[in-house]
């Protein structure tokens, strides 16, 4: 019920006639620029052209946004979007003794972020997991489940801190920058992905041509994945078919000079600490070292091969070459054009010839490219081998 109430309209009332109505001229004044009302006024004036309908729509949108925000923030303070991943049975059954083979990101519920997870996110994720899986909590929550009268008071879940240990280990590795670097180098997911990488032989069997879409579909994710290992960040990405010449050249330039921080200490064979045999230890150490060097070398060669492969299939290289040539020819034509003022049929013939020649040349270039790439790969491999040898020599010396 509203507080104001009007009286009944008299029956005799007739609408008065209005002559030339308009409100008294507005006066000018200066607003004090304060308060939310002033912001509303500004929005109304600047963004919504004095229209209340548009402003109302905007406010409604803002309100909805705020509501969403509040809903998302409802589960406590800002969790940076981590720690809410479902935990599979398999994950919970991990054996802490097998810690080297665990997926630490999955353990902390960060598998959607992996190497991109920052320190803050790891911290929060760890805290959440600890709260959830602390043995103290577990004992109390699982104990009443033993319904059998014979087993009352006996905690059946003897191994209930296994996953907690895994969490602790994962936290230890991921919060130590050195250990995390080593772990990230041989991340399971990464290794799996690398196995699926194309190798030259796969294309050799096929008809050795890829459509543009296929090319980008295959190679774009590879470079996105590999860029994480670069000491120089950010690395240029493959781009798309319309990428400029500068971009393409910059891309290959950067990737041929790739400086990787990847290392393979994680795959070392464990040195038997308990053994008293010094020689035994030294032998394992040496083995590990050479193994690391070998893996590193392989990794460098692998990447180089990938880049070579990409270069050989890159449709943009062809395009750029073509453009360059056209530009050159146009220049030439421009030079000779004023001299020759020949008829059109002749010209069309000449064009046909030119196209033919171009095609041939393209094929030649592609061939030469492939050859060059191969040579480069061989060169790189040789270089790497030499480097490895010198390292080994140095080590043995």
């Amino acid at each position, binding site marked *: *019920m509203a507080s104001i109430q009007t009286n009944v*309209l008299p029956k005799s009332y007739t609408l008065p006639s209005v002559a030339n109505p308009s409100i008294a001229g507005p006066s000018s004044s*200066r607003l004090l620029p304060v308060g939310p009302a002033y912001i509303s006024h500004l929005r109304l004036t600047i963004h919504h052209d*004095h229209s209340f309908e548009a402003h109302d729509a905007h406010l409604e949108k803002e309100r909805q946004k705020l509501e969403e925000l509040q809903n998302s923030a409802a589960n406590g303070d800002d969790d940076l979007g981590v720690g809410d991943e479902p935990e599979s049975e398999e994950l919970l059954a991990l054996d802490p003794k097998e810690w080297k083979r665990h997926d630490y990101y999955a353990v902390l519920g960060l598998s959607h972020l992996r190497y991109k997870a920052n320190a803050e996110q790891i911290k929060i994720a760890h805290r959440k997991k600890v709260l959830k899986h602390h043995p103290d909590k577990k004992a109390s929550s699982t104990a009443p489940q033993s319904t059998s009268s014979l087993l009352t008071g006996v905690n059946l879940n003897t191994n209930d801190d296994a996953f907690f240990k895994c969490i602790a280990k994962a936290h230890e590795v991921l919060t130590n920058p050195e250990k995390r670097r080593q772990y990230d180098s041989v991340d399971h997911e990464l290794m799996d992905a690398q196995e699926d990488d194309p190798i030259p032989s796969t294309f050799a069997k096929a008809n050795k041509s890829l459509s543009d879409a296929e090319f980008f579909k295959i190679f774009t994710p590879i470079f996105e994945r590999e860029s994480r290992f670069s000491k120089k960040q950010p690395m240029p990405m493959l781009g798309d078919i319309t990428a400029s010449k500068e971009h393409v050249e910059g891309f290959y330039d950067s990737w041929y000079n790739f400086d990787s921080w990847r290392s393979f200490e994680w795959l070392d064979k464990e040195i038997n600490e308990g053994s008293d045999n010094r020689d035994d230890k030294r032998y394992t150490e040496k083995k590990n070292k050479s193994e690391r060097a070998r893996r590193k070398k392989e990794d460098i060669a692998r990447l180089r091969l990938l880049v070579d492969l990409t270069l050989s299939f890159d449709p943009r290289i062809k395009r750029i070459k073509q453009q360059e040539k056209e530009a050159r020819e146009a220049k030439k034509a421009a030079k000779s054009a004023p001299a020759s003022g020949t008829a059109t049929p002749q010209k069309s013939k000449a064009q046909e010839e030119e196209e033919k020649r171009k095609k041939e040349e393209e094929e030649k270039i592609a061939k030469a490219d492939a050859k060059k790439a191969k040579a480069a790969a061989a060169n790189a491999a040789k270089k790497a081998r030499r480097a490895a040898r010198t390292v080994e020599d140095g080590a043995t010396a």
Partner: protein
Amino acid sequence: MASNTQNGSADPSTEISNLPDVVGINFGNSFASIADGQAECIANEDGERQIACALSFFGEEMYIGSPAKAQLVKNSKNTIVGFRNLLGKKFSEIPQSQSTASAPIIQHPEIPDEPAYKVEILQPAPAPLPKSTTGTPAASSAPTPRSEPIPAERVLTVSEVTTIFLKSLLQSAEDFLGKRVQGAVITVPSVFTDAQKHALEKAAKDAGIIVYQLLEEPAAVAAVTTADAWSSMLPADRTQLIVDVGSSSLSLSLLALREGLAHIIASTSSTSTGGDAIDSKLITFFANEFTKKTKTPLTVCSETPPSTGDARAEAKLRLAIEHTKRTISASPNAATCSVESLKDGVDFTGNINRMRFDMLVRPIYDSVARAIVDLLAEAKVDPHQVDEIVYVGGTTCLPGLDEHIGFAGGFSEVINTPFSMGTVIGGGIGDPTTVLARGCAVQAALIASLSSEGEDEELRKAFEHGSDLVDVKTTSKTLGLVFPDNSGNETGGTWIPLVLAETTLPARRTATFDIGLSEESKRFAFELWEVSEGIRVEKISPAKVSPSDAEDEEEEEEEEIKHKTIIKETLLGAAEAEAVLGIKVKGPSKDAGKWTTTVEATLIVAASGSVDVSVKEIGKDGVVATVKVSA
């Protein structure tokens, strides 16, 4: 790792608070205050919420705030006060005649036409040379002591002084918040010129403060009074008088608040009245009492420089009465003033009660009230049209001042003041000493909430000073609806005001109310009128007062009673409609049996001046009646 964690780390824990890390700074000429993002006034490390704007150099030390003010007694020539008002002024613009008790203002030796302060300081002597490893062995293994500090002179520009002071405020705020301050809103007096504003902005920038906005003092008040916490019991459209009694100035502003948008109708400011005058009165009073009680002559507040003993006694009293004034403001009982060894080793304890105090400072109250009356007369606003008074400054905490203004200003008895709302005491929202800083903090938090990209970027720009977006059009007359009836009153029906005069365009107002209908005809009609609001004065002579009016019987003279009146000026339009959702009121109430329907009236005045009214029955399928008036 282990060594790091052993004793814990000094890093602040991450979950300190979600407070917006912004501050509001009220930078007055005599006192400053700071407030955090939640609009709570912060005390500095000395525990003061009102931080004296003073800077004092003594030897190698620099004092800021109240310790510096205390130095005015013994070390006045190295103490800098009242520097804010000189910001951005040229040396030639500053009147030289006034002799101050503080460090003298001189022409800067290098920069032309730049005012500066010269203070004597002690510079630390250069560090002794390190012992050489070769050469003669030292006589003792103890390090060579540093030499005595060297007396030196330091010349500080007004801007440098301001920077040092603001830096200390920022430091206090950051110590309190425990994190870096991202931005601040600072008050400026309305009388500041653009050059002065720029000078303040620059000084703040040098102090490492990111200034979101320089807010004029009335605007800072409006930021608080338009907030929900303040105005829940007051109408959103009201006329507000801001009485700002600083320690050395009086400024008055009459504001039109229209649903959160505020603009100044009239304002005035003078430096002849202020809290310092009250101090002088009180000091004189206590000095006289001291002389009377102890037979020790004591002359204070005289033109001729008194003896050093008198000067010191005056300074001691000046510090002591601060407490007395606060006690007077807070409690109705007598307040004491105690000074140890006021003069010649004689202690002093005196009392003053509220009534005595009010009598004593009546001349100052009078001058404030006179300034208010003058302002209202100049703005042609009747005191009865003022809905609310807001007080700013420590002096306005005195209940006597509030009473006097209400009485001498001729305001209506039901006027809202922080005292009538009970928000002064106990650090309430109406606390006059902190309202400016809190207003700035509210504003800073608001600006901080705007994101810095996209559309909001444009809005942020609008807060920089010199933005022409503050220039707006306002209505000059009140608009409202008249629902005609047979009551025969001056408006010829029920008057529902919608858009008041002085409302910023474009404006939209909505009102919901019941319309009376008759059973046979559900017809209703309304007229859109432009009206002017006035005050009708009705004189009642005491003889005619009926005996039932017991309160007025004591009054001897003729009494004026003021009523708000509505004078219809222009008919802008009219419309009628048949209600379809009329209901009959049931139950035992006196309205039982009447027919009513609830409607919602929306009035939009566009920026061009065109008016659009729609009256809609609330509920499904209700009728809508509209009136449009072109510009």
